[in-house]
């Protein structure tokens, strides 16, 4: 490419892009800095700083020691892990069946799926259904909520269609049934789309806050995002203040509320960051390829 030398316009563009990206980078890293700062110096930390003032894990200790927060963290993990595994499994099984040749009734099924895709059920109706099947205030409600995404299902079908038919035929001749074919051949071969779609399900499950707040009402069933909202939006400090009391007894100086908040935010971001390499590798790659093909 010819435009590889540094020109004035390129420098200018570089500065604009860097500034724009810094508005995303700095506030997020600042949360980390705040959470890891030592309690007596965290109030000195400015909003644009990205390194902690001093270093301490005390904010995390306090937040995680709080039984309500640790319960919420556990609930979020449960919903995300169990939900994602079931979502992936059901999506792939269904995609496998729908890509079988000579499947009687495929057209009406696809029409049915598209109707589902267009028509979003209302909040009240979803609530009523949860109530009718007695899943209100039960963690399983969030596991089964949005269990299969039709859009991902269709993506998965495209991937499975790419698996060479001869492979499946060969296994069939060896006497494998559909379930065995699926488990032994399709699942292992669909590893990449599985990870891609799985991580997408996981992000949605982990970040879901509104539906968790209405389906899960009791304290024991709260999830991390709902808990976070209490701290951040409603500025309800009662839970954290309890923790601060706990700390006073152990003789540590008074804690900064914003640092505790930051620690909770960090706990809510870390799982996403752990998935981030997979996201970058598979999903953005997939979007790129998809875009080019189109």
């Amino acid at each position, binding site marked *: 490419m010819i435009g590889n030398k540094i020109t004035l316009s390129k420098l200018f563009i570089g500065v604009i892009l860097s500034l724009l990206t810094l508005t995303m980078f700095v506030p997020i890293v600042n949360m980390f800095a705040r959470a890891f700062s030592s309690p007596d110096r965290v109030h000195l930390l400015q909003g644009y700083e990205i390194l902690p003032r001093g270093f301490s894990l005390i904010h995390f200790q306090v937040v995680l020691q709080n039984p309500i927060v640790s319960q919420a963290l556990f609930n979020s993990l449960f919903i995300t892990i169990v939900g994602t595994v079931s979502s992936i499994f059901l999506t792939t099984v269904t995609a496998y069946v729908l890509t079988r040749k000579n499947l009687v009734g495929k057209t009406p099924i696809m029409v049915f799926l598209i109707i589902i895709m267009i028509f979003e*059920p209302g909040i009240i109706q979803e609530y009523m259904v949860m109530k009718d099947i007695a899943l209100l205030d039960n963690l399983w409600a969030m596991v089964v909520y949005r269990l299969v995404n039709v859009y991902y299902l269709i993506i998965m079908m495209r991937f499975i269609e790419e698996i060479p038919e001869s492979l499946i035929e060969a296994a069939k001749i060896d006497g494998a049934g559909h379930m065995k074919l699926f488990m032994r051949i399709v699942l292992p071969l669909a590893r990449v789309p599985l990870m891609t779609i799985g991580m997408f399900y996981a992000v949605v499950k982990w970040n879901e806050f509104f539906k968790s707040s209405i389906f899960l009402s009791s304290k024991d069933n709260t999830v991390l995002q709902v808990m976070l909202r209490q701290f951040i939006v409603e500025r309800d400090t009662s839970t954290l203040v309890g923790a601060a009391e706990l700390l006073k007894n152990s003789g540590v100086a008074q804690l900064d509320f914003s640092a505790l908040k930051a620690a909770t935010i960090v706990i809510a971001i870390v799982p996403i960051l752990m998935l981030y390499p997979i996201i970058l590798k598979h999903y953005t790659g997939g979007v790129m390829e998809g875009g080019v093909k189109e």
Partner: protein
Amino acid sequence: MSSRLMQMWKDKMLYIMLVPAFAYFIIFHIWPIFGMKLAFYEYRIIGDNVFVGMKYFTALFNTPVFTNVLMNTLIVSAMKIVIIFPLPVIFALLLNEFRNGRFRKSIQVISYLPHFLSWVVIAGIWFEFMSPSTGIVNGIIQLFGFPAHDFLTDKSAIRWILVLSEAWRSIGWDSIIFLAAIIGISPSLYEAAYVDGANRWHIVTKIVIPHLYIPMVTIFILNIGFLMNAGLDQILNFTNDAVNSKIDIIDTYVYRIGLLNFEYSFATAASLFKSVIGVILVLSTHFISKKLTSKGAW
């Protein structure tokens, strides 16, 4: 006919494998659609619901709050669509000036990140940097000699905050599709242009931008299909009593009236109204998109 039945019997395992997903679809997608009939009935805790026809819809349109809520939904959503729409395109064009270097990679990696944060976390971050006492934004404003301002409780600023935070979250991620389109442009086009004496600016305006028209039109049209969704999660996290009248949308209204005040029928009417408009929009944008670009939403 019988051969089809034979085939079905042969494939019985396949149908059994479909059962769990379809049970899910029927319970969580079809059953709620039937539940929508509550909009035409008066909800009774004990005894049968009474059919009341269009009563709740008439009431809905005679409620000034609902008119306000409908307008808010349309305004906030339209602002987001129109203002945010060109940004990922511009972002992709700027980024395209850098070829696969470390700089380009790091800008991309960082700019995608906000897309994966929940609105609660984003609200937490934004509250911190919009804070009148310690936030960066007000720090800069004060540097230029203006007084600090609490934008989050300012009625005239809050819709812009919604637009800006949505842009902050989506610019990087939404630019992927445009970057992909740019990468798809055949290099021979560039070379031919260079031979003809074109400079970088000519290349961008005469080759790259025209190649982005189709994805731009498609995405713009598809966005209009979701006009009735102004962003429930975002608004629930950015709202407060001072600004609620400006950003109260149909979704938040349905939630408040239905689940907090237990006026199920009234709220169902509001949500059915929203769904019907939404379906009409999605279907028409699908057909328009198909006409223009031979590509629909599905």
